[in-house]
């Protein structure tokens, strides 16, 4: 079992690739890997309830840890109380922690 941190910086309303990226996270988790999807920049937009939010909640149910960069949330005026189920705010330090621990860190 490998440990992955996947960074998603794009908004699904802006890039159709994003939904494929979510699928990568899902597939890796279903294959038994430990997966964190870390949302940064415009990638945090679906963390606030929208037509694409359910997919993030579903990922959480599939054992993907879904985190949203606190800085990016503040920039976009998304309060932690507005986050959909399964998404938690986190500091960017999480990514550096993962790199230092040798996890596979991939910017999607």
């Amino acid at each position: 079992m490998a440990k992955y941190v996947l960074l998603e910086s794009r908004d699904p309303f802006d890039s159709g690739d994003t939904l494929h990226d979510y699928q990568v996270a899902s597939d890796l988790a279903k294959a038994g890997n430990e997966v964190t999807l870390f949302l940064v920049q415009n990638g945090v937009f679906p963390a606030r309830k929208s037509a694409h939010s359910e997919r993030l909640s579903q990922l959480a149910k599939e054992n993907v840890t879904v985190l949203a960069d606190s800085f990016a949330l503040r920039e976009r005026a998304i309060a932690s109380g507005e986050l959909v189920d399964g998404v938690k705010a986190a500091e960017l330090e999480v990514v550096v922690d993962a790199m230092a621990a040798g996890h596979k860190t991939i910017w999607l």
Partner: protein
Amino acid sequence: MANKKKLTFCIMDGPYENARTVTALRLIDIAAKRGYDQTVFAYEGGVSLTFAKQEKHANSVQGASLGVWDHPLPREWVASIMETARANGGSVDWINCGLCVDERGVGEAIEGTRRGAPSHLLEAADASDGTLIIGARG
């Protein structure tokens, strides 16, 4: 520090173009504050981040003078991160892809940077605890 961490980053976006640059520099800054040893391989447009001739400018549209506008310069951000790393016992080995530099005419880079080749990225990744490639996208 016996278990000192070593990280490698590859960045490809030029200055003032994409939020990825800010996120990349935030990550590098976090590692600098921890005193990690880092290699940053700047590729493609990323080599312009450390171009020494970046200049502040006023904003005449908003009526802001040079001093008031205080335009941010990526070369100053990078220099600041390097200083942070040094102050915390770490280092930032900033390597600009030589071919990318020549293509763009940005050979005059700030102190503390050097020219290199993609093979340096591979070597750094091999020697690192973790590597993050931040690719440019359309």
